[in-house]
């Protein structure tokens, strides 16, 4: 197992820069998830770590050694590909053994390692099959098995579950989490699925356009997004981001007003650059809103109702144009066209300055600071 450090890493294809200076430190045994919109460079960065893509500039260290110029097999990594990339004509056994066979490892040792990996993944009965005789989930397992057999310092996954159906994805997600606990290995995992990121990660790294927008624990990103991009990216349904004007600022709070709000709202944040009169963005998560009885901070016509059972997603027209999404109690009687008052607390909301940078929140739930306790490996 090993730590990994990335320093001002860049990647260009010709004159197009894809990775624009990434700095990141990953500790030994950490499960790191890269998320971000499609095309932001997650796979490219992962492939640079794997050694499949040349590094244009910057430094990459695995276990303290600079590996910029090492071939993939010399980096102590193993990779699980999105398409699984199993050799179609080889049996499951040979798919897993291939790397060791090439390295001329002793036959008995190969056998022990392959069988061990098969046991971990509960697929001993599949060893003689070929990939086209396996289901998607089984192929996935073989791909992971092939990685385990390499006994790598760092596991790399590129959207490994995206080709599976929803139910299987949930199962495999739990198995991956268990695998990480059992092996205690450093893992880097690329996904665009928020749930995978939130449930698997020790650290989530959010990318946009080839730069890191924020890195932190899942709940840190949820409770303390550093900018509007991360705020909008983490959480589902998406956080509402609405324009407001600062009316007052003290050392530990900022009061804002907006035409779509029926009253002023005081938010417990460090004011930073938010001076009275300046424009700002108010971020309210749909789940932090509730349907009021008669009056609310927002009152407007309901334009969309989606009933999930225990909760209902409503969209309310607040002022001109701005629609607000709220996740309200599933038993609340509402219908499209009716008027619905919405309430929320200043303690739950986020404030961003004109550049989209978050003001530091002063009342954050304790859980946002908690790190997941790791088993002694």
């Amino acid at each position: 197992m090993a730590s990994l450090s990335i320093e001002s890493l860049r990647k260009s294809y010709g004159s197009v820069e894809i990775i624009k200076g990434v700095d990141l430190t990953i500790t030994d045994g950490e499960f790191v998830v890269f998320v971000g919109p499609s095309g932001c460079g997650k796979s490219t960065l992962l492939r640079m770590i794997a050694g499949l893509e040349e590094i244009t500039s910057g430094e990459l260290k695995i276990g303290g050694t600079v590996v910029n110029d090492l071939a993939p097999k010399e980096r102590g990594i193993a990779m699980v590909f999105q398409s699984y990339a199993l050799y179609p004509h080889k049996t499951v056994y040979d798919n897993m053994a291939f790397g060791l066979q090439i390295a001329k490892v002793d036959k008995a040792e190969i056998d022990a390692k392959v069988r061990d990996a098969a046991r971990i993944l509960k697929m001993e009965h599949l060893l003689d099959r070929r990939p086209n005789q396996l289901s998607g989930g089984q192929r996935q397992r073989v791909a992971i098995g092939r990685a385990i057999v390499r006994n790598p310092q760092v596991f790399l996954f590129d959207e490994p579950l995206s080709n599976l159906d929803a139910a299987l994805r949930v199962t495999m997600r739990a198995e991956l989490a268990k695998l990480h606990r059992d092996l205690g290995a450093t893992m880097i995992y690329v996904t665009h699925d928020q749930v995978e990121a939130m449930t698997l990660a020790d650290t989530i790294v959010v990318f946009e356009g080839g730069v890191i927008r924020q890195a932190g624990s899942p709940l840190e990103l949820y409770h303390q997004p550093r900018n509007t991009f991360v705020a909008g990216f983490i959480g589902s349904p998406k956080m509402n981001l609405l324009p407001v004007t600062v009316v007052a600022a003290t050392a530990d709070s900022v009061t804002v007003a907006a035409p779509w709000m029926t009253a002023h709202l005081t938010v417990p944040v460090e004011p930073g650059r938010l001076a009275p009169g300046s424009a700002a963005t108010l971020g309210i998560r749909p789940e932090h809103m509730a349907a009021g009885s008669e009056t609310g901070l927002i009152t407007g016509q309901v334009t969309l109702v989606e009933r999930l059972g225990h909760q209902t997603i409503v969209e309310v027209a607040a002022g001109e144009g701005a629609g607000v999404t709220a996740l309200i109690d599933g038993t609340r009687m509402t219908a499209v066209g009716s008027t619905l008052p919405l309430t929320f607390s200043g303690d739950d909301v986020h404030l961003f300055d004109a550049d989209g940078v978050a003001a530091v929140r002063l009342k954050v739930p304790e859980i946002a600071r908690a790190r997941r306790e790791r088993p002694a490996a």
Partner: protein
Amino acid sequence: MPKKRSSLHDQSRPALVLMAPAGLLIFVFIIAPFLLSLGLSFTNQRLVPNPNLPTSFQGFSNYLRLFGNAEFWQSFRNTFTFALLVVPLQSALALGAAMLVNSRLPARNVFRGIFFLPTVLTMVVVVVIWSNLFQINGFFNAVIQAVTFGAHPGFDWLANPALAMPSIVLVSVWQGFGFQMVIYLAGLQGINPELYEAARVDGASRWQEFWAVTMPGLRNTHIFVVVTTTILALKLFAQVDLLTKGGPLGSTQTVVRLIYETGFRKGQVGVAAALSVVFFLVVLAISVGQRVFLKEDREVA
């Protein structure tokens, strides 16, 4: 009522109607000529009818005459030697060229064009070019003289019984490999690129990668290329007729050219028909054999 229902679901009539045009063409241009040849092969039919020697039934005498004829066996030997040389050489060259063109070479499009060029030239043009290269004072001998500093005068390529067939093979491979290259290129582009990356992570060398990923990935392509190239090779005619006329000493005579000579030069249509029938059955057996032994992998993971 049940009758009406079944006619609604019975699709054999529309199927027959839809197959009819293709079936008609196959009958007129393949089955009927074969049956005609089969009929003629039992006669002494001549190209120009001889009033003194009317066409009559001859039984198997044409076949017996063929099997006792050394030229017949030599032409078969030559044709199969040619196929056994051309199929692997041309396939290997085509695969090599396809891999070169498929790589990230900066000039790959130029190569693609150059490699494909011979394929669009007709064989006659190709032969004109190559017959000049093969001349006594042509390019190949000039090269031999240059590298041996004049010690070796070179060869009379097309007049030497040992070199004539290899020379024909060379021309044919050069003319034909561009087509197979395009097929291999399509095959290569159908291989999942992540497989190459997986092989690199596994530590495979280029050579190991070729055997672990490229060759198995091209299985169906190989089968197609081998089957089509074999049939094309067995039909060898134009190069030989233009370069050596089957000589020297019959060392490049092929079955198709022998059919042509027998039927149109000597006018022995009956014998030529018998030869055609034998050749047809042999080619059919080879094609069926290849189909049976080279099963395509239909399900590709």
